[in-house]
């Protein structure tokens, strides 16, 4: 999507969304003093790259666990002395945590777009069923549908992003550590494998599909 900021207005946002042969253009133009409506906020939020606080916590916690496990593995298999190798391992771990969290965020963004479209009908039906007996305006119902769709997509994309990131990271780590770098010095093997795997996963996450 494209976003352009015009100084004379609060914000001019042009959203373009492409899905197979369909082209949906949503244009929101705000006057200088107007604020976003809840519907507009929900719409913006569903296409933004922002991660909620819960999502951030999940990504960083997952990155921490995904980094600690290989460190334990390398220390155990190679009988490395932690007193001698803790300094490089700390730097490697920090780089790996950042790479994995970055990759998770990107994967979540890619997946969220797809899940939002996928869950549109089901969420609409869910909200309609929930508020069938209650009297609420069509606009409010649409807002709730948008919110709920965004919520579901946020949740599902977060979980799926964690799974994909971990699977890719472990596969690349094993190929690097036990095939390409198997004969190297253990600390060098551990460092290059972990940073390399995190780097490759982060790189793969920057693809558009």
């Amino acid at each position, binding site marked *: 999507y494209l976003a352009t900021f015009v100084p004379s207005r609060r914000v001019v946002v042009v959203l373009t969304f492409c899905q197979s042969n369909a082209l949906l253009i949503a244009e929101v133009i705000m006057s200088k003093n107007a604020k976003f409506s809840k519907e507009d906020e929900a719409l913006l939020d569903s296409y933004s790259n922002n991660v909620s606080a819960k999502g951030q916590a999940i990504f960083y916690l997952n990155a921490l*666990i995904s980094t600690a496990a290989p460190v334990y593995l390398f220390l155990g298999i190679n*009988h490395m002395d932690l007193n001698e190798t803790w300094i490089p391992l700390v730097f490697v771990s920090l780089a790996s945590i950042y790479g994995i969290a970055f990759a998770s965020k990107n994967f979540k963004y890619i997946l969220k777009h797809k899940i939002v479209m996928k869950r549109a009908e089901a969420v609409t039906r869910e909200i309609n069923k929930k508020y069938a007996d209650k009297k609420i305006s069509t606009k409010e119902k649409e807002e709730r549908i948008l919110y709920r769709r965004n919520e579901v997509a946020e949740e599902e994309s977060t979980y799926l992003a964690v799974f994909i990131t971990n699977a890719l990271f*472990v596969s690349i780590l094993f190929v690097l550590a036990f095939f390409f770098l198997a004969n190297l010095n253990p600390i060098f093997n551990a460092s290059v494998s972990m940073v390399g795997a995190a780097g490759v996963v982060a790189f793969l996450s920057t693809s558009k599909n």
Partner: protein
Amino acid sequence: IRMFLLLLLMATALASAESDPKGAWILASKKIITSYAVQGKDYVVSYGLYNVGNRPATKVLVFAIRHGLAILLPKYLAIARMKMARLNPGEKITHVVILRSIKYGNYTFSLDAAKVTYSPDVDSKEVRSGFTSTPTKVHFHSLSEYERRFGSNIYYLIVFFLIMGSTSFGALWMYLRSSEKYEDEEN
């Protein structure tokens, strides 16, 4: 002069020729059984005594002498010495000592022969002594290097896959649970 020199040579040879030793005569050897020496692991040394004489050897005593910096310590003390009351002619005995190296590196065995003392006959007061043969230099590999190459890593791998599996498949299960709910809604 030539004849005189020849006679002189023969007389010298005969004079210096030793007669066959009388009584027991023990041949002693020291053999290393362990083919791959590792720091902190059992290192098996076998002493062999063979009586090639014509009388029984008595009060046979074998004890290991260590020279220089000793990195090999006996795993079980008091087995580095062996006493035997009698070794008949033609008999052979082996004695196994289990040692354990506390350090890694090269170890020179040539200074580490065992001394053998014995009496050549039953009532003899003579004491004969000798040394065993020795292997030359042995390299003791460090324990960490040995564990790295030959140790079992299965437990570390199991723990690793438990940790990664729980986070990854836990997240996948959460996604599938939500996905199933909304796919049921669609249907």
